C-alpha cells in the first residue's frame, strides 16, 4: 500500500534547535507513542521498537532508520523500515528540509510509505486514520520538548481509526495504490509527526 504525504509546518524554534531535536533519540523516543526504544546505531542510523495498533492488527515494529544526503540544519533523506511480525511490515522514506522563516523554522516533508502483510489485508483503510491520530499525540509531546506549545489545530483531527465506527473507516478508505494525504492547515506538530511516524512504517 503506497501512501504519500507532503506538507510543511512552521515551528516556533530556531533552525539549529529543531535540527538538534530531530536528531536526538531521547527526545524522539519520548514523543513517539508506543516507542519502547530508540537507539542510535552508527552515525546516521537508529534502531527503534514501536508498539502500535491498526484496527484489529496489533504489532510491535522493530525497525531501522537510516539518514542520508545530510546537509546539517538544512535537509536530509530519511528511510525506515520495520517488521511487525505476523502483522506485516512497514517502510517508508522522506525528504525533510528546514528553512528560516519569521518566528521560527519552516519544515517541509515529502513522504512515501508502504505497508504489507496483514496490515495491508485488513487495515489498509485504517492506516491513514491511525497515522493522523498518533501524529497529534506526537506533536503535543514534541512541542513541549521544544519549549513551545501546540498551536490549536484548525480542523478536528481524524478520529483514531481503531475507535472509529465502521462507516467512518470506510469513508476514509484510500484509493488503492495512490492514497494521498495532504494535510491542510493542521497543527504543525501533527505534520512533523506524520512524517516521523512514517520512518517506522
Amino acid at each position, binding site marked *: 500500500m503506497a501512501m504519500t504525504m507532503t506538507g510543511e509546518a512552521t515551528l516556533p524554534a530556531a533552525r539549529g534547535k529543531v535540527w538538534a531535536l530531530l536528531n536526538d533519540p531521547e527526545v524522539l523516543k519520548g514523543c513517539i507513542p508506543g516507542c519502547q526504544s530508540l537507539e542510535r546505531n552508527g552515525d546516521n542510523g537508529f534502531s527503534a521498537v514501536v508498539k502500535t495498533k491498526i484496527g484489529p492488527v496489533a504489532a510491535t515494529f522493530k525497525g531501522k532508520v537510516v539518514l542520508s544526503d545530510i546537509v546539517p540544519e538544512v535537509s536530509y533523506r530519511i528511510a525506515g523500515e520495520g517488521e511487525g*511480525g505476523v502483522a506485516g511490515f512497514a517502510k517508508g522514506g522522506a525528504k525533510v528540509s528546514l528553512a528560516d522563516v519569521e518566528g521560527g523554522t519552516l519544515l517541509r516533508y515529502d513522504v512515501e510509505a508502504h505497508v504489507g*502483510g496483514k496490515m495491508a*489485508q485488513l487495515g489498509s483503510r485504517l492506516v491513514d486514520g491511525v497515522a493522523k491520530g498518533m501524529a497529534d499525540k506526537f506533536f503535543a509531546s514534541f512541542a513541549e520538548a521544544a519549549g513551545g506549545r501546540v498551536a490549536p489545530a484548525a480542523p478536528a483531527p481524524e478520529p483514531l481509526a481503531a475507535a472509529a465506527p465502521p462507516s467512518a473507516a470506510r469513508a476514509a478508505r484510500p484509493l488503492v495504490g495512490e492514497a494521498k494525504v495532504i494535510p491542510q492547515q493542521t497543527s504543525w506538530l501533527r505534520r512533523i509527526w506524520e512524517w516521523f511516524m512514517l520512518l517506522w512504517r
Partner: protein
Amino acid sequence: MSATGIGASVKRKEDIRFITGKGHYLDDINRPGQAYAYFLRSPHAHATIDRIDTAEARKSPGVVAIFAGDDIAADKVGGLICGWMIHSKDGSPMKAGAHPALAQGKVRYVGDHVAVVIADTYARARDAAEKIEVSYSELPAVIDLARAAAPAQAQLHDAAPNNTIFNWHIGDKAATDAAFASAAHVTKLDLVNNRLIPNAMEPRSAIGDYDAGTDTLTLYTTSQNPHVARLVLSAFVGLAPEHKFRVIAPDVGGGFGSKIFIYAEETVCAWASKKIDRPVKWTAERTESFLSDAHGRDHVTHAELALDAQGKITGLRAHTIANLGAYMSTFSSFVPTYAYAPLLSGQYDIPNIYCEVDAVYTNTAPVDAYRGAGRPEAAFLVERIVEIAARETGRDPAELRRINFVKAFPHQTPVLMAYDTGDFGGALDKALELADYKGASRRKAESAAKGKLRGIGISAYIEACGVAPSQAVGMLGGGVGLWESAEVRVNPIGTVEVLTGCHSHGQGNETTYAQLVSSRLGIPIENVSVVHGDTDKVQFGMGTYGSRSGAVGMSALSKALDKVEAKAKKVAGHVLEASEGDIEFKEGKFTVKGTDKSIDFGSVALNAYTAHKFNGQELEPGLKEGAFWDPTNFTFPAGVHICELEIDPETGVVTIDRWTAVDDFGKLINPMIVEGQVHGGIAQGVGQALLEGARYNEDGQLVTASYMDYCMPRADNLPSFKVETIETPCPSNPLGLKGCGEAGAIAAPPAVINAITDALGHEDVAMPATPQVVWRAAQKTATKRAAE
C-alpha cells in the same frame, strides 16, 4: 418413475444433518493429545529469507515445535507437484519451479508459508509466531501478468526464464490465418477474465495424526479427492506409503475446485504429526483462505473472429496470457490449456481455430481450477465475440448464433473435441420464448421512459464435463487416469452400501446415488447409504470435480449394479429352482418367467449370505460387486442463458430483472438438485460479472483479503430464475448423463456483460462491472449519444 427413483425430485437426504448442525466438518473433529499449527506467512510478495530467528518464539508458553523450510528439506519431504504435463509449441516440457511446502530461502507471494509453529493451543501458537524474527531482503514483485514475461522483470524461479512456464498452442495456424485473409468481416476483442477467490463456506482444514504403534499416518483434510491426495502425498511428497496412509475427507462445506489441490498446510500437518508424535490440527482463518486458497481465472486475451459475407463464422484465433501465480498448483497447467482452448468452438461450426496460451509466473497466489475451470474463460471469449460480431454486422445476435450452430452430430471441432449430441437450436428457441425476447424492445422503451437503460444478453455456452477417457488424458499430459470406481455392498437383510471414489461436498450425491440404487434394485432410498471420503473404506477413486460425479461416478455405480443384478439372478435361480436365464428382475422382484413364482430382493440377499440353497463351490456366497468406469468421451452439457437487466445511469447500479436458463444436461437423476446446481452456478457467474475481483496492488499486497473488500453475490443481487431443461441423452455413458455442476458459472458472465453492453451501446465494460465501472461506462454512453 417411482417417488424416489431416477427422475424424481427427492429432497436431499444429507440436508437434515447439515441444516440441523449435525454435520461432521473437519473442524468438528478433534484427536486426543492434539496440538495446533499456526503458519507464519510472508508479508512480502517477493523476497529472499536471510535469517529466521525462532529462539524467542521457542520460549513462548505452550510451544511444542517450530519448523521452517530447512527442516522440510532435511527430512527430504518432496515438493508439491503439478500433475499435468504441458509441452510448449517447440516441444519442450513446461518449466516448473520447485514448490516446497515451507519456503526455502525465498518467498514468492504474500501468504507464502515461511514457518509453522505448533503449540498446545492455537492462540499460543499464534502468540509464539509473533516472536519469530524473519529477515527478508525484498525483491521487485512481478504482479501484472501481461508484463510478467517482458525483459528485465524480476525472476521468480530459476527453472522458468522470463517467468514463462510454457508457450502452448492448439489448432492450425496457417489455415486459420488464411480464413482471416479472406474474411468479409473481422471482429477483434481484448478481454480480461478477472481473478476470483473461491470462498467455500468451510475454510480449508487438516489434522495429521500419526500412530507410532502401527506406523500409520492418518490425514483428515478438506478434500474433494482424498485418494488423489493420498497418492500425491505418498508417491511424490513421500510422507508415507499408501498402505500405511489413510486420508479422510469428511463432510466438506463446498470446494468449487479449490479443495481438489494438495496444499502446503495439510502436507505440513501430516509430516509434523509424525515428527512430534502428536496429532497436529490447522484450520484456516478467513484471511488465510483469501491469501492461500488457489485462485481462479486471471486471463488476458486478444481474440479475433472471421466471418464471411453471409455471417458464417470462418475462423477464430486467440492469444491468451494465463497467470498461474507463484507456484504451479496441482492441475494449474491443465486449466488454461486443455480445459480452455478445446472449448473455443463453442456451439458453432467453426472450421478454423488457432489458440496460443502463454502461462506465466507472478508473485501472487497459485491459480488453479475454479468452478468451470477454463470453460468459463472459453465461453466468455466466444460468447462475447460472437455477440459483438452480430452487433458490428447489424445482425440479430440470436440469428447469428443460429446460422452458425452445429446442427449435425457427431461433430468434430478443429480443436480436439468431438461433440456427441445436442440440440443447440432447440435450446435457443425455448430460451427466446421463455425470455420473451421479442418483447425486449418494448421493455427497453419502458425503461428508457424511466431514465433507465435496459439490456438483454444471450449466452449459448458449451462445456466439456466428465473428463475423460483415461487414455486421452494420458496422451494430453495428465498424470492420472480419470475413470471412477464404485462398489455395491448388499447386506444380508437387503440394505445397501454404495462406496464411491467420488466425494460429495454440496452435490447431493448421497441422495442421487441412492436414487439410482433404489430405481435399479427396487428398494427404498432409506435402505441405501453412500460411503465416500475415506481411503480405508473406499477403493481407489478420483474424486469430484469437473461435474464428474454423475457422468463418471454414477456410470461406475451403474456398472456395479449390473453385476449385482447378474449375481442376484443366479442366487434367485437357485432359490426358485429355475434356470438363471428364466429369471426376470423388475421392481425389486425376481420372477420366474411366465409364472407367479417370485422372491424379493431382500430375500435374495439373505439367501446369498446364508448360502443354503446353492453349492458354495459353484456360486460364491455373498452379494458385493465393484466396478471401474472409464468414459469413452467427454460429455457436452450445453444451453442458452438469457439475462435481462436494467442500469441506473445515475448510480451505475445494475439490477438483473430476468434470468432464463435452458440447459441440456442429458438425462436427469434429480431435477430439483439439478436446478439447485444451476442456481448456485448462476450466482457465482453473476458474482464474477458484477462483484468479485481479486486485486493485488503493485507491491503484491492482496488488498481484497476480506469480505470488506471482496464482494460475494447475495440473494438481492439476483432475480428469481427461470430454469428449464431440454434433453438429448449423452450416448457415451449408460445413464445418458452430462453433468450440471458448473454450467451456471460458465453461462452467466457473458450473458451479464452482453446485456450490460447492449444497454450501454458500447463494448467498453470490464468485469467485475461494479457500479463504479458501469457508471463510468454510462457516462461514455451519454457522451456518445449526445454526439449522435
